[in-house]
């Protein structure tokens, strides 16, 4: 066989039925799965934080700052999977320099910047400003210098100015809630607006993405709160933990209902794409959709958390259940993103065939790179917790 056809024939071995040439290789791999996953964690964590601030759910106080710092740590990394997916990552800034109003991705750049600069950084700064000023006076060395820079020169600690911190912070949180909805609803819109792809193209996509984001963000804060408290050898605030789990349960119901609605709608409409989508979910996506996403990631946590709403076993059992549920939900939502991103590219738009996705270990689209982007936010969070420890702040405000 001539060498120019060798590669084609190798690729065709991963194809079943008829497929267009540009569909054989998946263009969006694991890194693009991570992009909506990480962005969702940010939006979810922020919405949990805003419950305490705007809706006055005082019992969540111990996790308020932790949720904000978690959102920041993950937001700083949210675009990295996208950038590292590019063939020319150093040209990524061009999307911000010459944005086109018809490009959903270009506008995302500005939605992201708005959320980072105007919402999250400001809210954290205003919330910590008083503490940063105090810490800048008490601390020396590198950390002290860092605090001095972070005060941005506003060292006024008069009650009037501190009240302003609170007022502006409250206002920003109010603006922040629709912004968080926009940030993640928008990620859903990017997929939902691809009209050529029947697996993606649904107006429910932004809403489904948003609710699954809230589910994953709340589960992440639950997980991090338990791990951080364990590391600090402190007693867990069970009232806070019970409340977070209760919110997780409610939002999980909504999320599951919406996704179910989407699927029932597809099944009832049974458009011309239905047959291939049915083959898709019963074939290549069976494990990741039915087992990972629905059974492990949704039904088991839903039933476990549901039982805990009616019957409260002793603390240790509850803690183990919450911890397992948070991990299962995080696992399930990851595979929800996987099923959307990878699933949408596995079938041919001719509706007559399938291709396969092979995850590589190394390389720019490989598992190792993806792990870097998953681990990095935890390292950033570690740094943020070292710099702006919420517990120190709590001690001071209560003393």
């Amino acid at each position: 066989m001539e060498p120019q056809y060798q590669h084609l024939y190798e690729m065709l071995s991963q194809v079943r039925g008829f497929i267009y040439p540009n569909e054989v290789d998946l263009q969006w791999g694991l890194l693009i799965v991570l992009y909506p996953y990480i962005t969702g964690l940010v939006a979810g964590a922020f919405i949990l934080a805003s419950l305490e601030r705007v809706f006055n759910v005082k019992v969540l106080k111990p996790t308020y700052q932790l949720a904000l710092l978690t959102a920041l740590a993950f937001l700083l990394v949210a675009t990295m999977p996208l950038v590292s997916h590019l063939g020319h990552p150093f040209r990524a800034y061009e999307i911000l320099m010459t944005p086109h109003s018809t490009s959903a991705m270009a506008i995302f750049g500005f939605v992201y910047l708005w959320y980072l600069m105007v919402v999250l950084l400001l809210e954290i700064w205003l919330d910590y400003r008083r503490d940063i000023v105090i810490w800048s006076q008490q601390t020396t060395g590198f950390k002290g210098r860092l605090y001095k820079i972070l005060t941005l020169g506003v060292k006024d600690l008069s009650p009037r100015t501190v009240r302003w911190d609170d007022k502006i912070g409250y206002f920003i949180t109010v603006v922040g809630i629709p912004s968080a909805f926009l940030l993640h609803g928008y990620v859903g819109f990017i997929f939902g607006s691809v009209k050529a792809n029947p697996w993606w193209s649904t107006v429910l996509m932004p809403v489904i993405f948003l609710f699954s984001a809230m589910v994953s963000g709340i589960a992440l804060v639950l997980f991090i709160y338990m791990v951080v408290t364990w590391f600090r050898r402190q007693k867990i605030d069970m009232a806070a933990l019970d409340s977070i789990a209760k919110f997780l349960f409610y939002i999980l119901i909504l999320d599951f209902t919406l996704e179910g609605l989407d699927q029932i709608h597809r099944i009832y409409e049974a458009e011309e794409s239905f047959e291939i989508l049915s083959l898709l979910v019963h074939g290549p996506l069976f494990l990741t959709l039915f087992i990972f996403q629905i059974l492990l990631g949704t039904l088991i946590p839903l039933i476990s958390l549901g039982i805990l709403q009616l019957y409260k076993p002793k603390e240790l059992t509850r803690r183990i259940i919450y911890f397992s549920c948070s991990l299962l939900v995080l696992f399930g939502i990851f595979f929800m993103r996987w099923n959307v991103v990878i699933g949408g590219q596995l079938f041919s738009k001719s509706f007559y065939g399938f291709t396969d996705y092979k995850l590589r270990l190394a390389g720019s689209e490989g598992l190792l790179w993806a792990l870097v982007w998953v681990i990095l936010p935890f390292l950033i969070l570690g740094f943020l917790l070292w710099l702006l420890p919420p517990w120190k702040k709590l001690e001071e405000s209560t003393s």
Partner: protein
Amino acid sequence: MPPQLKTLIPLFGAFIVLFLIARHFLVPVSFGELGHYRFNSIAENKEKAMNYAGKDACADCHDDKAAQLKSDVHSGLSCETCHGPGQAHTENPETVKLNKPDQRSFCGNCHSMNASRPKFMVQIELKEHNPDKKCIECHNPHQPWQLKE
């Protein structure tokens, strides 16, 4: 005005100004001249070497083959589909020779049995249909249905 805003507003103003300055330097020259693209890219693309000559260029010299091709079912194919890019050949016909594929597997790229191919494409089992012969021993690729003796 609260002291926080006195600091934050100029800071955000400075950020926007810095962004606009960066944009001034980073947007490529000629971007947006005639649309949402870099206008100079057209000239740069024009300067690139041509690889394909097109069917008409082939017919200038090989009018007999072009007529044969036109008369039969392969009339929709371009010459360069089978023979490869021919620009270099049109410039130096004596020194640069094009590929004349004659392997069974080459014809099989389009004509081997595959249920998902459109029905109008003639399909055969390569292993069963005269397996010891080359396709072109019987079929003239320019006139596939004019069978050779």
